[in-house]
């Protein structure tokens, strides 16, 4: 198996190639405004570094958020097109789960949160058992409404330190964790998420009232 994994649901643009046992190559760049520019060069670069071609890819894994929509869609449309053209399955992974996987050790036997920046003074968050099993979320909300004593990974506790317990890193996801997660699940015969975005909010749009008068009353 050769898995191409990537995530664009946070300011990190991250891509990796995984052979089912280990990560062959990984690239992560942090630039919140350039997902559309940086993702595909990163994918080409990790394929090259791994010494494989697009024809060797047997599955695609993509972070489905939650995350800021514009960047999130770059990853999803890329995954769907690659899957359709290469004729390989596309697996979705909650981006918070990928971060959670890398926080288990630092959580040191405690339940913990993963929280990422949802802008508008809110965070996307989920709660995990000490073993990394998601038990609440993903959801979007104000940091102050969450669990101030629980250790937390992701950018959330760095942006809003008063609202969370001990920050236990990492700040952003890495595609290698996403790839590890997917290859383990696939090996265990588990079904993954579809490549559908977790927006968690409706689009901002209000139905307008009647047209404003332009004449003096």
């Amino acid at each position, binding site marked *: 198996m050769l898995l191409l994994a990537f995530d664009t649901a946070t300011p990190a643009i991250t891509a990796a190639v995984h052979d089912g046992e280990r990560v062959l190559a990984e690239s992560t760049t942090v630039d919140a405004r350039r997902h559309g520019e940086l993702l595909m060069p990163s994918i080409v670069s990790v394929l090259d570094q791994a010494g494989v071609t*697009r024809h060797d890819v047997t599955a695609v894994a993509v972070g489905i958020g939650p995350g800021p929509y514009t960047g999130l869609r770059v990853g999803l449309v890329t995954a769907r*097109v690659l899957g359709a*053209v290469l004729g390989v399955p596309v697996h979705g992974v909650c981006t918070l789960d990928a971060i959670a996987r890398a926080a288990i050790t630092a959580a040191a036997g405690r339940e913990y949160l993963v929280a990422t920046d949802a802008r508008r003074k809110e965070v996307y968050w989920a709660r995990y058992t000490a073993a990394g099993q998601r038990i609440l979320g993903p959801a979007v909300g104000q940091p102050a409404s969450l669990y101030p004593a629980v250790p937390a990974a992701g950018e959330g506790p760095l942006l809003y330190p008063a609202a969370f317990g001990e920050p236990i890193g990492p700040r952003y996801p890495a595609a290698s964790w996403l790839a590890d997660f997917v290859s383990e699940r696939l090996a265990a015969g588990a079904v993954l998420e579809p490549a559908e975005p977790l927006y968690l909010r409706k689009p901002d749009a209000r139905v307008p009232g009647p047209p404003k008068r332009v004449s003096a009353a």
Partner: protein
Amino acid sequence: MTAPLVLGIETSCDETGIGLVRGHQLLADSVASSVAEHARFGGVVPEVASRAHLEAMVPAVDRAFAIAGEKLAAVDAIAVTAGPGLTGALLVGVAAAKAYSVALGKPLYGVNHLAAHIAVDQLEHGPLPAPAIALLVSGGHSSLLLVHDVASNVVPLGATIDDAAGEAYDKVARLLGLPFPGGPPIDAAAGHGDRSAVAFPRAKYRDGTLDFSFAGLKTAVARWVEAREAAGDAVPLNDVAASFQEAVADVLTAKAVIACRRNGVTDLIIGGGVAANSRLRALAAERCAAAGIRLRVPRPGLCTDNGAMVAALGAELVARDVAPSSLDLPADSALPVTDVVVR
């Protein structure tokens, strides 16, 4: 040897347009529109459009290939609108185009939306005359361009200083209680009205520039309608629609003819969604005939946003051996019309 097969992807606003073109031959034009989702908001909601592009992309491409009876692997190049347009919407198309480019191992061309509106005419009326004047009118643009070469040399002559013509249609439709988008219902109502009933203002008509202004016209229509309502009179909707439409078509065509004369050009191309308007087409034909100008207007389906126009411009670039774009191609919401290809 057959001409190259080019896939065109357009997502600058609310249409997911996918086109397949071989040389100057149109093989497929598949458009998935989210316009119905925007109607109740009275205008395009960028986030709604962007979400719809993501869902429509792969099915729309598959449909285009099915219509053309071609295989994805037969594609020689991918062209995509890189701007101008709504950033979030553009990015879905640009990211998709890069993925098609890499997955198929074929070159990518990031192209200008406005130049594509001109290039599409080649699919209907053959090679473009050069130089030509182009009048591009849509919900987002109202521009006059001097086109020396659609693949490399487009010079802006004038543009709207406020609302685009199509935007004025949408706003006037709303104040007349007609649905969004405003072009088709106003055109239909105008067909039953008297276009000389109300003398609405023609802004910048004799100011010597090739710029337009439509915000004042919209306000003038609103004032006129409010005055009727205040007096307890019925609003003659068909006459208002016809008179408003006449004011728009009059200014657009008059300035297009002036642009031709000033530049010694005898060919005019009209494109963009408003070019589907029946009065604009008729008045342009009349005035061009009187001025000795040859007029080219694509059929209405190719005037509104579509993927065929992007593929048409891409095919022209491939035919010229123009260097393709790089994989870090950005989407540029304010891409100037002078940048036909983005690298």
